[in-house]
């Protein structure tokens, strides 16, 4: 009797009504081309954005008269290039569809969780690169127009925001770490 029930539920699952999807080889090729084009578009847009930011910062280093602001612009430029290099390495390490059958579901799930955990845990490292440059730039600009007390308040607000984001990301990383530990204990 119990086996009959199991069979019935299994049959119900396997015989569930399906929507009519027309997934032909041509449709798959078109979708694959569409995905590739999307990636290329993102790469081009990213490249343009980086080029614009680079030109803008080089221009600002050139025209700024305040030493603090010029050093700040230069540091932002260096940070930008470091982030681009790091991001390229990070994206190359991502799983591609061709290799999805090589890993078991548990291995793949674990690697995705680890990737998300690392994103959350290390996000501050990406932001931190820009802190000296932007900080110097802002302080240099503000010292000309604002009082020292106003500058101090703005710096404190900036640090508090940074700490808040850090805390949220650290909490997410801990949750993901617990899920990874649970997976490893299975």
């Amino acid at each position, binding site marked *: 009797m*119990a086996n009959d029930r199991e069979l019935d539920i299994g049959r119900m699952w396997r015989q569930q009504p*399906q929507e009519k999807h027309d997934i032909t080889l041509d449709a798959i090729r078109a979708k694959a081309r569409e995905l590739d084009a999307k990636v290329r578009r993102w790469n081009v847009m990213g490249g343009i954005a980086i080029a614009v930011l680079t030109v803008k910062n080089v221009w600002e280093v050139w025209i700024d008269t305040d030493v603090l602001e010029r050093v700040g612009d230069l540091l932002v430029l260096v940070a930008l290039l470091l982030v681009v290099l790091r991001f390229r390495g990070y994206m190359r390490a991502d799983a591609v569809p061709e290799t999805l059958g090589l890993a078991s*579901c548990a291995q793949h799930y674990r690697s995705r969780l680890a990737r998300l955990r690392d994103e959350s845990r290390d996000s501050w490292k990406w932001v931190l690169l820009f802190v000296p440059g932007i900080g110097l730039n802002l302080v240099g600009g503000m010292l000309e127009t604002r009082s020292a007390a106003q500058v101090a308040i703005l710096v404190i607000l900036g640090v508090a925001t940074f700490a808040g984001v850090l805390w949220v990301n650290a909490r997410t990383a801990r949750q993901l770490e617990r899920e990874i530990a649970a997976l490893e204990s299975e």
Partner: protein
Amino acid sequence: MEERYTEVARTFGAAPERLAGAYERDPDARRDLLQDIHVALWRSLARYDGRCSLRTWVYRVAHNTAISRVIRPRANAPTLVAMDDSLDAVADAVDREHGVDRGRALDRLHALIQRLRPPDRQVMVLYLEDEDAASIAEITGLSVSNVSTKIHRIKQMLIRQFHEVSQHGE
């Protein structure tokens, strides 16, 4: 590669669609996921070297594609739970209907599956696809004994929670 893909599509029929339904409730998202699964299968078959059975390869690609897509937290996503001790509790929480018909039972089954943690969800879907414990272990990477334990719990829960369906079907 294309011949092999055609063979896979013919052999596995609607299994990828059922699998997509285990991960995405929304019909549009489900359709997108199904397309992603087929594209991943088509691309991956060039790398298939016979190290595992084609069946294992296909299910791995399909589940791993789905996981990559749904793993990021979503605002409206339910809290996922482990199968271990709470399978019945989850099933109870999934809007139990009186006088269950097959359509409603299927909705409930989908809702239940979508509440499970991915490793448990994968075992349950593969069990419902009539895969045995050894195959499920190879696909998921869990040990055979672990899979057997999970299957035992699934069977008990299905019998308790969905027996009305069986009675209607008899």
